[in-house]
């Protein structure tokens, strides 16, 4: 052992003091692999029981809603209470369709990764409502700052599935030129900010975009998403401070799906307080919503969007949900959590809940739903085939080498020009027959 200064000598216990020894608390989830699951501690309130304050209320009036759980769909699949957004059946069918498409897409892409067509994939299974229903509540040109699990927003905004697959395959038609890890989409046209791999960076950026919109007297607002695990990052708190200081027109979402890779929400502070209640300390409005209830998610997002758009300031929304699948294709959740968590999750599945609601309203049927699923699966399959014509990862059909050096700067400086020429030379040495298409 290296020598250490005398002041560094380890001291154990409390050195003979008669004060009680301090002890460290390390959070531990309730259930581990194989454990039976009991969710009675969650105390899910009945749907419809939560008050809906005026959108222009004082931020502090929302404090009780930060520990409550806004729910609209009840156990008999009816929409109840003051948060019922009273959406027409046609809108709800569209919402259902986008969520179902998101799921069909996820399933297909996950399999594609397993078949070696790309390097990586992440599903949002069980969390579709948190992005899709929110997207329905925003205007299509409100700027969204997503994390990697909001593919539902892009799909809701009509981004072509083929383009998503081109990005996932990193092929020659990929609009992002094969530069980004699969699912790290970007579409300015769809007001969908370029996704970063570095967690939570999008939060202060959303605050900044919203401030800019306010500086310009625009009417568009911003909305950002972050996982509950990532809400521990400093960027989250920077964003909260900026948004409240400038009363920025932004809606912040925390998708609390209970897990951050292998770490449960307790490592982000969930043992002590709800995520929504962080709003209280900042003087921001906060709402805690059943994230598997698409109507409740829509209603909360709409409330917050209206508030932001009428200069009443930012809102923090916690979506209480569950990550039904592994973190990504690189993850095996069986190593660290009980498989019963998913099956016992007391808030059900967002697609099933909306489907049953529409059926209960006489606006949908089991047969229609099955037919829709088949159609969506076929549609995704066809899009996959179409995208595969442009190549899959690692099979030659990628963007030309020189594109690697573009967009580092607006203009190519001499050293990148040289390096670009070198890359071409290396290609000619390795593949003398190659012709750039």
């Amino acid at each position: 052992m290296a020598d250490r200064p005398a002041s560094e000598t380890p001291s154990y216990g409390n050195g003979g003091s008669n004060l009680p020894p301090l002890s460290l608390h390390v959070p531990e989830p309730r259930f581990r692999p194989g454990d039976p699951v009991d969710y009675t501690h969650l105390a899910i309130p009945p749907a419809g029981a939560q008050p809906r304050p005026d959108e222009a209320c004082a931020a502090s009036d929302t404090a009780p809603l930060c520990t409550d759980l806004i729910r609209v769909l009840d156990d008999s699949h009816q929409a109840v209470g003051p948060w019922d957004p009273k959406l027409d059946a046609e809108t709800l069918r569209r919402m259902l369709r986008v969520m179902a498409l998101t799921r069909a897409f996820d399933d297909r892409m996950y399999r594609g990764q397993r078949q070696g067509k790309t390097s990586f994939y992440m599903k949002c299974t069980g969390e579709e409502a948190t992005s899709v229903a929110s997207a329905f509540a925003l205007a299509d040109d409100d700027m969204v700052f997503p994390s990697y699990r909001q593919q539902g927003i892009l799909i809701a905004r009509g981004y072509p599935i083929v383009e998503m697959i081109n990005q996932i395959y990193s092929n020659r038609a990929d609009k992002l030129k094969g530069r980004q890890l699969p699912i790290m989409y970007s579409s300015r046209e769809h007001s969908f900010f370029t996704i970063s791999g570095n967690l939570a960076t999008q939060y202060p950026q959303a605050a900044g975009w919203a401030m800019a919109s306010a500086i310009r007297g625009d009417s568009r607002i911003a909305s950002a998403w972050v996982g509950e695990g990532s809400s521990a990052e400093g960027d989250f708190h920077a964003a909260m401070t900026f948004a409240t200081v400038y009363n920025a027109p932004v809606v912040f979402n925390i998708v609390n799906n209970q897990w951050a890779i292998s770490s449960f929400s307790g490592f982000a502070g969930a043992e002590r307080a709800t995520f929504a209640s962080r709003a209280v300390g900042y003087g921001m409005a906060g709402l805690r919503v059943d994230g598997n209830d698409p109507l409740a998610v829509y209603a909360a997002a709409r409330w917050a969007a209206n508030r932001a758009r009428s200069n009443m300031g930012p809102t923090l929304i916690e979506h209480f949900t569950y990550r039904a699948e592994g973190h990504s294709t690189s993850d095996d959740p069986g190593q660290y959590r009980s498989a019963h968590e998913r099956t016992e999750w007391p808030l059900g599945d967002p697609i099933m809940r909306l489907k049953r609601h529409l059926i209960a309203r006489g606006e949908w049927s089991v047969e229609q739903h099955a037919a829709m699923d088949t159609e969506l699966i076929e549609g995704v399959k066809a899009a996959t085939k179409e995208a595969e014509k442009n190549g899959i990862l690692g099979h030659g059909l990628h963007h030309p080498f020189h594109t690697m050096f573009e967009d580092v700067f607006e203009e190519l400086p001499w050293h990148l020009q040289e390096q670009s020429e070198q890359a071409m030379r290396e290609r000619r040495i390795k593949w003398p027959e190659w012709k750039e298409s």
Partner: protein
Amino acid sequence: MSEGIAPVRRLNMIEAINDALDVMMDRDPDVVVFGEDVGFFGGVFRATAGLQKKYGTHRVFDTPINECGIIGAAVGMGAYGLRPVPEIQFADYIYPGLDQLVSEAARLRYRSAGEFIAPMTVRSPFGGGIFGGQTHSQSPEALFTHVAGLKTVIPATPYDAKGLLISAIEDNDPVIFFEPKRIYNGPFNGFYDQPVEPWARHEGSEVPEGYYSIPLGKARIARAGEALTVIAYGTMIHVAAAVCAEKGVDAEIIDLRSLVPLDIDTVQKSVEKTGKCLIVHEATRTCGFGAELSALVQERCFYHLEAPIERVTGFDTPYPHSLEWAYFPGPVRIGEALDRLLKA
């Protein structure tokens, strides 16, 4: 180094790192290990597997996803007298903790005139070659070698990984310990279209049981030779060695092992002997560590040089996804530089 008669096993690099942590946790109750997913799960690369079970949650634990907190807490624990070994899940995610490293850990000793120190080792997987895209592939070592008060260590074999990590943990100054993730499971040699041989077939995988250490600041001659000197570290040692072998170049390959402190004597002796110098790293070129090496060689060996010093590096772009192998400083790029040097 005290190899003694300890039984030797063949380990891959992850196992060797796990072994080093195990040895040090066993020897020194002040050693604590923490980071995102390192506790129950044992780390996304499994480097800390089994340690929580063995040493308990007070010495091996998960953390919130906050790299500033992870490194800042390590500074505080070090100030108390613990010997923290935090993990940053990927080197690409170390930036939120940069202020705690640069302004705090690196300067505690100096600004408190030795009253407080930061005896911590920040472990982090770095480098590309795994189709990880721009946020799972970077080699940011030069950001850290540029900071006065930080040590930067990069192993190239399981044997070195264990011995260097033990030294890093014992060191009373903050050490950035970058683990080349591409060679966790085998000495990848840059020929990406060929299968990677497992560590078991490489002599660097012979790892003695128990305690041994490799001093920081002592390079390893990975291959002795006369024709030219190759200076590299991490994954690029294996790539450079494979290219030299393929081309039949009698290169002397120096594995730096530690960038700061740097074993300048070994570098200088070799270049004075061969008269030619090739520097290889995967990191971007401009202001990369190769620039420092090149300056040092020029300053110290100018009159022995028979050719301009060559640098082979990653390109000055973010790490691309689909064009990963066009970006990677692989056999073709190294081969061209070798040809130029040998012709000179």
